[in-house]
């Protein structure tokens, strides 16, 4: 964990509302994400979790502060990162295999090799027999599997995930989380995972970062989660140590959630 893959320094992001009011989403964000670690960012809704992820992806420019990726200052799109979005991001006019090979294709890789590799990934994420299906023919969980393969096939150093399983039912979600952990363990890249679900964050992560309520949210707590790996996601939530972590982090998060309730009541 000595190599830092993502280093955020004094990051801030302001937006201007249509009425011309300036609004600070996040500020004073400084965070080191070690290579190969699984870091979750939790916080009340509307606290700017996605904003941090989008800046790390290079899809959004910070108003202040800097981002370094493996020591290099980030300019434009983060070429070493893949992104799994909360919404469906598969291209509906491409088949499953066409979507999975898209990243290789865009990078100018050989078409035949890309197709072979993509077909391997189709099997690997459990979509055997659906290579030539279009996204509309798949269930929500299957679309997430395809999105997973799409993000992982390009061998990224960093995977950014923005509540990727928010829309799934509890059981499908549990299976997907398991798949993510398996892929991550096999490949050893860095994962930055945004969620509002503290249980999910603890179950998956090495480290949980708590953001304060917005506007102007900042990091109010960082917790190492040294539960042993590989983790059994089905039973982990009933383990006593899981409960300890949960209580410790929740006492911080709880305050912020209450604050965000008060603010939304005022508004």
């Amino acid at each position, binding site marked *: 964990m000595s190599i830092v893959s993502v280093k955020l320094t004094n990051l801030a992001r302001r937006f201007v509302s249509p009425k011309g009011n300036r609004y600070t989403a996040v500020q004073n964000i400084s965070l080191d994400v070690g290579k190969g670690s699984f870091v979750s960012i939790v916080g009340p809704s509307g606290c700017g979790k996605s904003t941090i992820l989008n800046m790390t*992806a290079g*899809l959004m420019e910070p108003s202040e502060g800097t981002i370094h990726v493996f020591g290099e200052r980030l300019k434009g*799109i*983060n*070429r070493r*990162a*893949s*992104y799994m*979005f909360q*919404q*469906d*991001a*598969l*291209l*509906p*006019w*491409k*088949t499953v295999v066409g979507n999975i090979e*898209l*990243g290789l294709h*865009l*990078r100018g890789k050989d078409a035949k090799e890309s197709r072979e590799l993509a077909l391997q990934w189709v099997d690997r994420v459990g979509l055997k027999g659906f290579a030539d299906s*279009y*996204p*509309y023919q798949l269930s929500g969980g299957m679309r997430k599997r395809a999105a997973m393969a*799409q993000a992982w096939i*390009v061998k990224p150093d960093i995977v950014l995930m923005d509540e990727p399983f928010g829309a799934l039912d509890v059981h499908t979600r549990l299976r997907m989380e398991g798949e993510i952990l398996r892929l991550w363990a096999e490949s050893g890249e860095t994962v930055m995972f945004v969620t509002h679900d503290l249980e999910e964050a603890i179950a998956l992560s090495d480290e949980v970062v708590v953001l304060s309520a917005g506007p102007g949210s900042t990091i109010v707590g960082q917790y190492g989660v040294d539960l042993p790996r590989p983790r059994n996601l089905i039973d982990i939530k009933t383990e006593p140590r899981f409960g300890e972590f949960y209580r410790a982090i929740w006492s911080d998060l709880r305050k912020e959630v209450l604050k965000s309730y008060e603010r939304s009541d005022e508004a």
Partner: protein
Amino acid sequence: MSEATKRSVPMLVWQVLLGAGLLSLWQVGVTYRWMDKFFFSRPSDVAERVWKMFATGSVWAHLATTMTEAALSFGIGVFAGVVFGFLLARNRWLAALLDPYIRIANALPRVVLAPIFLLWFGLGIWSKVALGVTVVFFIVFFNTYQGVREVDPVQLDNARMLGASERQLIRHVLIPSALTWIFSSLHISIGFAIIAVVVGEYLGASRGIGYTIAQAEGVFDTTGVFAGMTILAAVVLLVGAGVDRLERWLLRWKPNRDTSARQVG
């Protein structure tokens, strides 16, 4: 009639019955002098005329002229519409600059341009092509513009993260996404292209289906007018069916609403 019969007889049969009924009414009405043959002609006469036009081969030159004009105006109009639609959708400043002028140009009734195009481009095919282009262009342009603007930003971001360059974004995301819109405009614009060139021919030409209709009208030959109309309608339907097939193939990634409706019904 019972509900069961209504459902067991296919709709096509009802449709054919309706058409045949109306045509017979027309035929009988004229034969028994309830309607004046001079003004209304007769379905049997029209059919005979159409058959004769094809049998003698006199129709082919006219049909070829009209179709060439329509194809040229459609091709040029679609190309220009798609290119301008993309350009303006991707460049807000340009779109804002040109917005009032596009509105003004689109507000013009295109038919009044026909005499001017006749002066500019002469009696040949190009005056008709110009008229057709002004019609097709705006339909395709507005739809392309809308289609590109409505692209899902998440799909764009995803392609960007996967390494897409600006050109690859157009090729892999923007064009396919706008295709649905462009296609819905093709259906309309192909019909309008044919109508526009026929209007052009009607107002001044030496060839084309519109010209034959105008000629027939000049000598009060109602049978000739109806024969021309029949051929035109058939051609528009045929071309429309072709576009339908192409669309179904190009948009095969979309959930097929027809199939699902059939499953439910």
